[in-house]
């Protein structure tokens, strides 16, 4: 299995001499920095998103929806507003002010970070080399083999410490090129100002309340990815994987068990 990696440190010619016997970093500096900024942003968006959701934990389909119209479904939690029929006798404290400020500030940080990452990834071939399935892996057979390995709870192959397997690549591509763009789109579709400039953005989603419901499900899928991602880091070796994403060090040490 070939390792499709390309050093991203072409300019660091002078550094190369001092790193002669060490390997190139597992993750490029830009990947590591944007990864952790995205982590902070995502957690901020998640927490503030949940707080905003608590003010009206009901979801609808179509253009309009409110406490007087039948919901598509409800989240069985108390609400932070007295006017919402939550089924609970008490009202949670209103946290929407700072939650909204945080949500939009973190969204800007995430979008700008994502933009830098996407431009860099296209420019350096990061997506082509590290995320697009390797030439030998572009078959259902290769895909199923990796799934089978996972289902048997086998330890990852040694090669996995230096490169992504096809299942990882598919998951990361899905998050980067489908879920993130979709969650941004459905979020923008909730902005009355943005809607006035680009009405099609909300209309093709089926209306404002459909956009809100889809925004919720997109976030839910991202949360699901986060849980699986963190679980896999633990299973594959928390120390080496964390070190690779923080310092970039590639050499795989045996985990002390």
């Amino acid at each position, binding site marked *: 299995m070939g390792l499709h990696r390309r050093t991203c440190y072409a300019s660091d010619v002078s550094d190369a001499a001092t790193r002669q016997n060490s390997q190139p970093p597992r993750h490029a500096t830009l990947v590591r920095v944007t990864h952790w900024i995205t982590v902070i942003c995502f957690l901020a968006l998640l927490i503030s998103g949940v707080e905003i959701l608590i003010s*009206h934990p009901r979801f609808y389909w179509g*253009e*309009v929806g409110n406490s007087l119209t039948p919901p598509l479904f409800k989240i069985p939690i108390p609400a932070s507003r007295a006017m919402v029929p939550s089924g609970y006798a008490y009202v949670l404290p209103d946290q929407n002010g*700072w939650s909204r400020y945080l949500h939009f500030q973190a969204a800007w940080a995430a979008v700008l970070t994502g933009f830098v990452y996407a431009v860099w990834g296209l420019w350096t071939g990061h997506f082509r080399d590290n995320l697009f399935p390797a030439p030998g892996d572009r078959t259902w057979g290769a895909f199923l083999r990796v799934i089978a390995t996972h289902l048997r709870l086998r330890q990852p192959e040694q090669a996995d410490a230096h490169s992504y397997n096809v299942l990882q690549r598919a998951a990361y591509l899905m998050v980067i090129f489908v879920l993130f763009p979709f969650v941004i789109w459905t979020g923008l579709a909730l902005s*009355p100002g*943005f809607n006035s400039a680009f009405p099609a953005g*909300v209309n093709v989603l089926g209306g404002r309340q459909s956009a809100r419901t889809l925004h919720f499900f997109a976030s839910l899928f991202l949360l699901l990815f986060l849980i699986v991602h963190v679980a896999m880091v633990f299973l594959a070796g928390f120390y080496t994987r964390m070190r690779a994403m923080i310092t970039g060090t590639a050499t795989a040490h045996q985990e002390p068990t």
Partner: protein
Amino acid sequence: MSKISRRKFITAGLAASAGLSGLTAAAGLVRRYQLIPPDSGGFWGPGETLTYGAQRLLTRHSLAREFPSSMISQVPFANEIAPLNDSFQRLQARGFLDWRVSFEGLVERPASLSLSDLKVFPVRSQITEVVCEEGWSYIAEWIGTPLVDVLNACGLLPQARYVVYFSIQPDWWESIDMADALHPQTLLTWAMNGGDLPVSFGGPLRLRVPRQLGYKSVKFITRLIATDSLKGFGKGLGSASPEGGYAWYAGI
């Protein structure tokens, strides 16, 4: 001292000058289009400024979506309001005949108008959605007088940058920039769905700002002031919302 190659030096110089001219261009854009919101200070300032600035470049003249009459909500949802004060109740007892709304500040001819004075202006109606920051929404037909018509009749002065508007209820005031104040859909609303505007929806007079969240559409309007600065109003953050922890610009 480490050597700096000529290529690196030129590259860095080019990058620096590109960055500087980019910043200068951005500063010019910000000055020309006034892209800084009044609550741009503090920890949340960067996000708010990016949102407001980006949207003002995109949405200066854009129109809020309007809907066919078949989409008007059968039962619109009236959000809770604080108990109505004595002044309101006295006016309500006389059928709002004495309700007056004043137009002050940077206008050549300040005016105090009754509801029937407002109804002399050309009537406009729009079927738009009320969008609450909590997440719910409804569609209604809003009927009234475009704010821009009244401002022009009062002789709005060119140095005006904001319009501040007050409810008869205490501590309930907002402000909008001129892009929204002069916007054709910003409506001094006195009727809804073919009838008088119900008190629960802001009657007798509500300022509808359909390109922003519902909390900018203040109910029971009695006073509007055109101004070039928001410094003298409350804590200078633009409206009561930032003082209560909510963003001044609610176009999101």
